[in-house]
């Protein structure tokens, strides 16, 4: 573990992409700190405070496939989707992702890259989009989404988040009594 990623379990939107990329690349340990504001990645002597930079740095350090010309457009898509609640926009983005993923296993090349994690994280953190996906109108996006969610590293990261939330709930109970 070269680095440390500090986040708050109650962050909203929660930086799913950063936490899951840290787990996948095993390049940073995730530390939950309730008092943390935003996100802080300490990696190889540098301090990073935005999720997109954190995902890029972790992916690079983890040796994930290098950026393609399309990667920045996926980061832009993730940024617009993460807090989008406009149904037509969400539908249009999911339709376009679905067309692309009809014939492609991942967003860039034939392996998981930063583009997959940043877009997956944006979808995962948007309850409206998760609802849309559950309707199964975008079966190719769903296949890709479920694959990333099912990875052992993703499952471990989500379990860590659940544990941090439970810990916080117990701590609150203690204060109340």
């Amino acid at each position, binding site marked *: 573990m070269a680095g440390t990623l500090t986040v708050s379990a109650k962050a909203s939107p929660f930086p799913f992409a950063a936490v899951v990329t840290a787990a996948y690349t095993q390049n940073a340990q995730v530390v939950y700190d309730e008092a943390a504001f935003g996100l802080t990645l300490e990696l190889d002597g540098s301090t990073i405070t935005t999720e997109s930079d954190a995902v890029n740095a972790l992916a690079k350090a983890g040796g994930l496939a290098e950026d393609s010309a399309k990667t920045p457009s996926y980061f832009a898509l993730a940024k617009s989707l993460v807090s989008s609640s406009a149904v037509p926009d969400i539908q249009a983005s999911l339709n376009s992702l679905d*067309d692309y993923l*009809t*014939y492609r*296993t991942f967003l860039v090349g034939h392996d998981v890259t930063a583009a997959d994690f940043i877009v997956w994280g944006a979808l995962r953190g948007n309850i409206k989009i998760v609802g849309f996906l559950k309707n199964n109108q975008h079966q*190719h996006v769903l296949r*890709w989404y479920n*694959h990333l969610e099912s990875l052992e590293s993703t499952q471990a990261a989500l379990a860590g988040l659940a544990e941090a939330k439970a810990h916080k709930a117990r701590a609150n109970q203690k204060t109340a009594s």
Partner: protein
Amino acid sequence: PDVRELVLGAAKAGGVDFGKSEKDKAEVVEWVENVAQGSAVKAESLKDLDAKLVPRTYVVSNYPTVADVALYGALHSTFSQLQPTQYYAHPAVTRYFDHIQSIPPVRKSADALSPAFSHIAFDFTNAPAIE
């Protein structure tokens, strides 16, 4: 074309599994037997296979196994004869086939048996919109 050689070569190259759990191992065996039996990979069965592959990235669990190599190998002769309109009609099998053929140990094994499992190039940029 010798699918068995292809599978053994890919397994030897590493990165493809026989199944990480007992349950996965049993499923791998089931797929391999099904593929060896032959009917699943005929052109007329592609529709059924396509439906099975829509929700899957790999046939067993979420990582590549020898079942994927066997299925890819068995599909190769069918795919080498498909016209674009035919593979566009089976997008999930095509996506799956293209992914498995690109996995490094599979590619390595396939190239060693050249020209039997030559890389097949697909044109996805000009694929017609679905529905």
